[in-house]
């Protein structure tokens, strides 16, 4: 059979030679190996100061996008909640009133939208299910908290701010609407 790696070694149980029985040469060889590692570059990434570069398709913390006029895309259709295998998403729909056209894109919007980050498995099915390009997973990491309740993210944490929009152009499921 063809071997899968080039590191294949034939194992044998032949009796040890005198040099091998001395055991000391093997120890010195091992010490040589560890000494080389001592001088090598450290592979640690010191997290809070340095962050690992994520792939653009990394599935991290969610964002609820606004459109180009700053209106929320989400229409509270509930498809993301249905798609979610971990049942992490809850929402309450509301009707847009007169004068709120600059806030919500369509007549229906999410009054309350919550994702339980402890339940979420970051599979990205919500992103795939969303017909309105409202929810995306980003390359941001969900920070640690001390209380379980703090992991239930409401709209205050999920909706992107108008001043600092979150770039999702590199993601896989974007651009359906702009193609039209």
């Amino acid at each position, binding site marked *: 059979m063809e071997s899968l790696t080039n590191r294949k070694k034939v194992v044998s149980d032949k009796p040890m030679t005198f040099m091998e029985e001395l055991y*000391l040469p093997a*120890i010195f060889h*091992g*010490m040589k*190996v*560890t*000494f080389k*590692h*001592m001088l*090598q*570059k*450290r*592979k*640690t990434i*010191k997290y809070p100061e340095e962050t690992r570069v994520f792939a653009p398709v990394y599935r991290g913390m969610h964002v609820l996008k606004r459109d180009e006029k700053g209106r929320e895309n989400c229409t509270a259709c509930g498809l993301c909640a249905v798609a979610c295998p971990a049942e992490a998403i809850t929402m309450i729909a509301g009707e847009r009133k007169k004068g709120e056209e600059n806030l919500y894109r369509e007549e229906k919007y999410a009054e309350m939208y919550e994702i339980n980050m402890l339940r979420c498995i970051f599979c990205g099915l919500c992103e795939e299910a969303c017909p309105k390009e409202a929810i995306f997973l980003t390359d941001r990491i969900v920070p640690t908290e001390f209380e379980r309740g703090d992991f239930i993210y409401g709209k205050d944490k999920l909706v992107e701010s108008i001043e600092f929009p979150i770039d999702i152009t590199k993601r896989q499921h974007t651009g359906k609407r702009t193609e039209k």
Partner: protein
Amino acid sequence: MDTGLLIEKSVLVLIIFLISLGIAAYQTYFERKLAAWIQDRVGPDRAGPFGILQPIADGVKMFLKEDFIPKDADKWLFIIGPGIAMFTSLITSAIIPWGTDLELFGRTITLQVADFDIGILYLFAVLSISVYGIMIGGWASNNKYSLYGAIRASSQMISYELAMGISAITIIMLSGSLSLTDIVNKQHGMNWNIFYQPVCFIVFFICSMAETNRAPFDLPECENELIGGYHTEYSSMKLGLYLFSEYTAMFISSAIMAILFLGGYNFPGMDSDFFKDHNNLLAITSIIVFFSKIFLFIFIFMWIRWTIPRFRFDQLMHLGWKVLIPVAMVNLLITGIVIAIKEGWFNELM
């Protein structure tokens, strides 16, 4: 009694005590750093610059932990166990000559707390009782794993002390004295014992690794078999003292090896004219040289620990009884014959 002498010795004892504790504390830091480097990691780097305040943070943590004594433990022995371990690893430093004589305030100060003429015997006596700390701790815990650890420690000590003693006798034969000062002075300049007795050095080195319970001989505290061995039931500063005494023992046995084999505070060029005029400078240089030899040994100790996996117990016994003791004995015999020929004891026979 000479008051000056009393003050001088007290100050020396205090300094040595503080240095031993300080070095033991920073050994923990350095051990973690070295382990990290060998494993391509960074190691502790949060407490202070490069993490140099880590030992202090660890110490504070140890003190703040709950001091727990098991219900069925022998309370008295449980408390004095770590004390004995710490005590025995500290008192060895009394006989170590730290450097050449220092001249201060018109007095000649010997940098040695006590110059016994039987220094090596004292050393081995203390080494033998150092197992009592572990033994008592393991026994008093009333826990079978602790007891196993303690039994392993004592059988290991007994096995390796023999080979260690025999190799020490070889050095005594070379120097013709039991006093550590004489042994050091015999190796004046570059005349170190390691060049005459490399086999003896290797045997002694392996044995002192086993005596200090360092990996690969750390079977008494083998985590995966004995859940921590003799200090399973210990917590808080009692555990801290056990760990500390191990590091102090490592420091002291590095010092002993430096004395017996690397010529203690001797260094090449100590007879030059410059040092003849500057006596104190010579003393300070010799102290620095001695400590760098100690640090070299400590480094090798740690380097070996993070290289070699732990022995199995039968392998340990095999190595101790069937390899090291015969090697040490043959070495002793050859050394004896060579010395006898050199001294001309065989002249009449031949």
